[in-house]
């Protein structure tokens, strides 16, 4: 297993953001983290990066205890989110170079050019990061997240600020990388259609709890509680919200 999370809990004062969740991810698996706003998706991702310390539970990544092997594990992971950005005065190339050096990757220049090419933003390499549009910033963030050829990639709403065409392109890149490098990807999104078509498995979170875990079709059947031939995550999503409100 690439990721094994057991009874993970995060309490902020008396509010429980992540409530005793357990899940795992296999090699080369793309897992979608779904759930309404405030479900605890981002908090969980941050705990998997040691940006937030859990209140309880265990995290093991690449078969090792995360707390004890933080540096070694993070060296083979990466993360992207459109809600973070890079130092605004540095150019795109310089920013990526800094991260390439942090990860100590070989032939950094070549790797950076390759990635910029892949995301079709090679023309931005000498632009200061502060002048980028949010969609461009997202794609530079994705380049950053692939610099070290991570074995585990955590993406928090990676396509939130992208138009449908670019967002489609990004998904194609991610699928290709998974094919080539056997990367495991944890992916959060509010776009049910895209989650359906990229993810092998869905972990559905609500109020910090996992309410379903399975393939899109399994989830659909489980939550809608009826026989279906096609996944219908959007319907699932509305059902979850409605049920929560009536409770």
């Amino acid at each position: 297993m690439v990721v094994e999370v057991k009874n993970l809990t995060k309490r902020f004062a008396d509010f429980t953001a992540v409530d005793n969740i357990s899940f795992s991810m296999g090699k080369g698996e793309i897992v979608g983290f779904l759930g309404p706003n405030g479900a605890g998706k981002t908090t969980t991702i941050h705990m998997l990066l040691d940006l937030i310390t859990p209140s309880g539970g265990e995290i093991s990544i690449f078969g090792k205890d995360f707390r004890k092997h933080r540096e070694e594990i993070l060296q083979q992971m990466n993360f992207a989110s459109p809600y973070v950005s890079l130092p605004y005065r540095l150019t795109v190339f310089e920013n990526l170079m800094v991260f390439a050096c942090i990860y100590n990757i070989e032939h950094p220049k070549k790797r950076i050019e390759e990635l910029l090419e892949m995301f079709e933003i090679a023309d931005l390499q000498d632009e200061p990061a502060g002048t980028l549009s949010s969609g461009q910033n997202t794609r530079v963030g994705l380049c950053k997240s692939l610099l070290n050829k991570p074995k585990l990639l955590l993406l928090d709403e990676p396509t939130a600020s992208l138009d449908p065409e670019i967002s489609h392109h990004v998904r194609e890149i991610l699928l290709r990388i998974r094919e080539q490098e056997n990367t495991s990807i944890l992916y959060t999104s509010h776009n049910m259609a895209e989650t359906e078509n990229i993810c092998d498995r869905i972990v559905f979170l609500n109020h910090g709890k996992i309410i379903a875990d399975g393939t899109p079709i399994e989830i659909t059947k489980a939550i809608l509680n009826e026989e279906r031939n096609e996944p219908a995550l959007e319907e699932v999503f509305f059902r979850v919200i409605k049920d929560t409100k009536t409770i």
Partner: protein
Amino acid sequence: MKIHRIKAVMRRHLYDIRHNIDRSMDVFYWPIIDVIVWGFFSFYISTNNTFGPSIINFLMGAIILWSIFYAFQRDFAVGFLEELWSRNLLNIFSTPITMWEYLTGVASISIFKIIIGSFTASLCALIFYSFNIFPHILLLIPYVLNLLFFAAAIGICITALILRYTTKVQILAWSFAGLLQPVSCVFYPLSSLPQWLQSIAWFLPTAHAFEGMRQVLTDSTFSSTYFWWALILNIFYFPISLVIFKKTFEATKIRGLLVKLT
């Protein structure tokens, strides 16, 4: 500690100096302006009263050494603020980098800036006011190291405060040293302070360093008493600052504030 990660932090700040007029001003502008302004002033009083010409040495030496202290403590906090302002903290701390590697990188680049800045300021003092600090450098270095040591402790504590209270307290990066300045006896001997302030000053490595500096500049002798006092105080303060920082960083991750900072 991995050297390539420390070098990456240095690279990030070197790029910034290249692009950012503010940061290059930090290197040259203030050290030079200070030397020029204080130079005129000390030149004026040395020709008009009873202090004699040694006053110019005291003031020039004081301004150069104080600039070093001020810049070093400021750079820790400003380096961290730069990441916070650009919402880069999560990018950085989701890499394997440790807080200590990060701080070491920031400190190294700051030392590099300080060497260039204070060399230029010293050159100005020599050219404009014939104050030559260079022959004294060997004897001054132990005091400068003590100043850097204490500046690091202060800078690390201020960074911890920014971690905890965010940009609400960012002004401390530029202002806190000012609070220490009167009691550090930068421009006047310790004996000129009122008794109760003197007893506070004894606890500041800066006060000992500046007393020592004046002795070097007056009769070119080195007082090991001042040196050791400053060092012992530093050996006491510095680990405390590291503990404060470590605790704050851990608390920040528990409260989920690192994530909120961006």
